[in-house]
């Protein structure tokens, strides 16, 4: 397992397909983490990881040897995750519902419940947080995850999402504004 990323890539391009296993095992967990944070779904995240690694393998000849493979595959995974949540946007919208539904969910969480329900409060909080994340557009959500959960710079976010740094910054701002409004009832209740 001492083979470096670049050595593995050279081996793959020389016809040794199995050398790619080194790269897969080395980067899969990182890719899963960011994929899950963007998609919010385990099955989707697993799928994103596989899609990203297959896509990277097919583009391996275009990978520049001076670049960092980890950064490169990370960006590919972000794009795949973005595609995934963009593709199911319609489903999400129907699941999240309209403004009335949202208000209703906020009221339910904010309501001081009796003790049996109180037990489920932590689960409810997670559900609301998930709902808040799902209320963001795919770009806002990805930008927020990369900035606040993955600690990526604005430039890195722009590069990963294929947008200008200023647009990435605006996406993060919009995401924070929306999340703040969504999570306000939780803060009040706790």
């Amino acid at each position, binding site marked *: 397992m001492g083979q470096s990323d670049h050595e593995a890539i050279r081996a*793959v*391009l*020389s*016809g040794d*397909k*199995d050398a*790619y*296993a080194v790269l*897969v*095992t*080395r*980067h*899969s*967990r990182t890719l*899963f*983490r960011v994929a*899950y*944070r963007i998609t919010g779904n*385990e099955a989707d995240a*697993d799928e994103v*990881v*596989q899609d990203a*690694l*297959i896509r990277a*393998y097919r583009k*391996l*000849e275009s990978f520049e040897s001076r670049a960092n493979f980890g950064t490169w595959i990370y960006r590919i995974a972000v794009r795949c995750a973005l595609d995934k949540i963009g593709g199911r946007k319609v489903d999400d919208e129907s699941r999240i519902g309209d403004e009335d539904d949202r208000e209703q969910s906020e009221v339910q969480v904010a309501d001081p419940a009796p003790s049996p329900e109180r037990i489920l409060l932590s689960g409810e*909080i*997670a559900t609301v*947080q*998930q709902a*808040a*994340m799902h209320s963001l557009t795919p770009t806002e959500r990805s930008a*927020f995850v990369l*900035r*606040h*959960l993955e600690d990526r710079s*604005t430039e890195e976010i722009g590069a990963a999402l294929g947008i200008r740094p200023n647009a990435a*910054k605006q996406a*993060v*701002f919009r995401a*924070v*504004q929306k*999340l*703040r409004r969504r*999570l*306000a009832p*939780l*803060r009040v209740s706790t």
Partner: protein
Amino acid sequence: MKHLTEDELIEQACGEGAIDSAQHLRGCVECAASLAELKSDLAEVGRVETPQRDELYGERVWQAISGSLVRYAAPHRRWMSFGLMRGLSYAAVCALLVAVAFYAGRKWEQFAGRKSGTPQAAQSAPKKPQQPVVVVVLGDHLDRSERLLVELKHVDTANADMVPPLRDEARSLLKANRICRENAEKVGDEELESALKRLDHLLTEVADEPGGLDAEGIARIKNELNADGLLFEVRVLRSRARDQKPGLVIRLNGGQA
């Protein structure tokens, strides 16, 4: 006091706020509380637990995707296909360049010839080693032969100075006569061939008379070889050759023009 807007608070929360805003936050308890509240909100979202994947996760992913990956071609095969194409391209380009250079050279030669005249162009052309070409014009040869026969008829054998030029001329004519005779044989001109054959005989005798030409030798040649009759034949043939346009030209290297 003017408090920070939501955007300014968000900028601070994202670590990208202006210096003025940061200074304001140090003096404004209300805005500092708002910022703390905002950071708390973001931290709440960050606390959402990400499912963990064990050490074998990568291997499972590899098992899942390895079947759909196509092995890259070995470098030499890729080189072969790429190199072959590149080699063929180079060869095609080289061939094209040679063809263009050849064509341009030909055109330039023609242009230079028209511009400066053929003789000068021929002089300026680089001289290449060639096989020597002797051009024999039948009419000229017969003229010279006729003169020799006339001189032989009227030679003053007492004058020793007159004989050597006769012998030298005979030797000179021998080679041209041989060419003309061979050519006459080739084209099937029996009359010409017969006359040239006898002329050849006479020239040989004059050129190579043992002991040198003297009065007795010249008389013998005249009688034995019927020099007068041969002179008549040569004159007839010369007249005939003059009427033929263009005159017969024979090249020593076997060519004919």
